[in-house]
Every structure is written in C-alpha cells, then in structure tokens.
C-alpha cells in the first residue's frame, strides 16, 4: 500500500521535501510502522523522527496516535508541535 506523506515547517526543511509517496508493507500499516520505515533511512530521518523528539502526526487531517492504522491512499502529515495564534 502507498500513503502520501507531508512534512511541514522545520521537518520540511530538514528532509528537503514537502511531500512524498511512501510504499509500506502491509505489516507496517500504522503510524508506528511508517515512522519505523522512515527512521530506517538513517541520517536526518533517524535523528529527527527519534521517539525522544517532539513532533506530531495527523492522518487524513486529524491528529493521530502512534497506534492509528493506515490504509492505502491515506494522507499522513508529520510536523513539529504547532505554534500559531
């Protein structure tokens, strides 16, 4: 299955892209699975997405948890804690 992953603010700059399509094996079909998959790229991915770092994940434009399941075609956004207002 494939999900569309969006990056915002500092993470967009760190990864050098605003969006990418990521193919995930079916056994990794959750937010946790996607994060593991991205961290396995090493370098900035491993550092910036380490569990000790502060960031948020939204699935289909709703705030998500680490256990939120993913489905083919989902839009996943990964971003730093928000600072609007």
């Amino acid at each position, binding site marked *: 299955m494939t999900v569309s992953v969006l990056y915002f603010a500092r993470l967009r700059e760190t990864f050098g892209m605003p969006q990418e399509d990521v193919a995930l094996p079916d056994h990794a079909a959750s937010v946790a699975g996607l994060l593991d998959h991205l961290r396995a790229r090493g370098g900035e991915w491993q550092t910036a997405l380490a569990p000790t770092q502060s960031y948020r994940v939204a699935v289909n*434009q709703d705030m998500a948890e680490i256990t939120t399941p993913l489905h083919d075609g989902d839009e996943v956004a990964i*971003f730093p804690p928000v600072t609007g*207002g």
Partner: protein
Amino acid sequence: MPVRVQEADFDLSTEINAFRADRPEIGAVAAFVGLVRDVNVGSAVSGLTLEHYPAMTQKALQGIVAEARQRWAIIDALVIHRVGRLQPMDQIVLVAVASAHRGEAFQACEFIMDYLKTQAPFWKQEQTPEGARWVEAKASDDSAAKRWTEK
C-alpha cells in the same frame, strides 16, 4: 461558525459588526486579537512567516469551535487567522464569541484560543538578526489547554 484563514489583514470593527448584525439575541461579544511582537526569547524580531497545513487548518479550527459550542451556550463564534509574511504590530488572529451573557463568551473565547495554540496546524518562523528561526512550542501553552480538561 465562520472560520477564515487568509493573508489579508482584518478590521476588528467591521468583523464584529458583520458578526452580530441582525441578531438581537446577542448580549455579549468577547473578542481576542493576537499581535506580532518585536521581541521573542531575547531576540529582536523584524518579521514573521506563518506556514500552515491548508487541508487540515479549516477542519481543525471548525472542530475547536464545535467543541466550544458543546461546552457553553454560545450563539456563534468567529475565527480569523492570518498566514504568510507579517511584521511587528500586525494582527495575527481574531477570535470572537457571541452569547446572551458575558460569562459564556469570555470562557469560550479563551478556550478556543488555548486549543488553537496547541491543535491548529500553524507554524511561525521569525526573522531575527541571527537569521530565521522556527518558533518553539511553549509548555505553558500545553498547560493552558490542559486546564480545560481538568475542570
């Protein structure tokens, strides 16, 4: 419950007048306006760029307003949040809440602002003499939002 995200500035009087027009049941309007300051965490700030997640912003703000409507007997709420490049003294955000009496309006207005600060997908990047820097989220904003769940 109008929610708008825009680059353009807004005029407080125009917005409030339109918001309460032809609604004689409104007895109170509480409004909050957030502004760009010229200093933050010890550095001079010459400007600000506000980034957001367009597909999610509207949905998140609507959700926060809907939550406020469940908690308080308010008549309506208005949220305007600006994005793009801003300068010190510019207006960033307007939250206005209308109700029959002041208590609900005051509380719902503060609730919407507290949740907006921690839930709505906006990010500020400041221009300082040391270069551009992303604003860090504040723990005090998290505590401000959390106190509404402890009541």
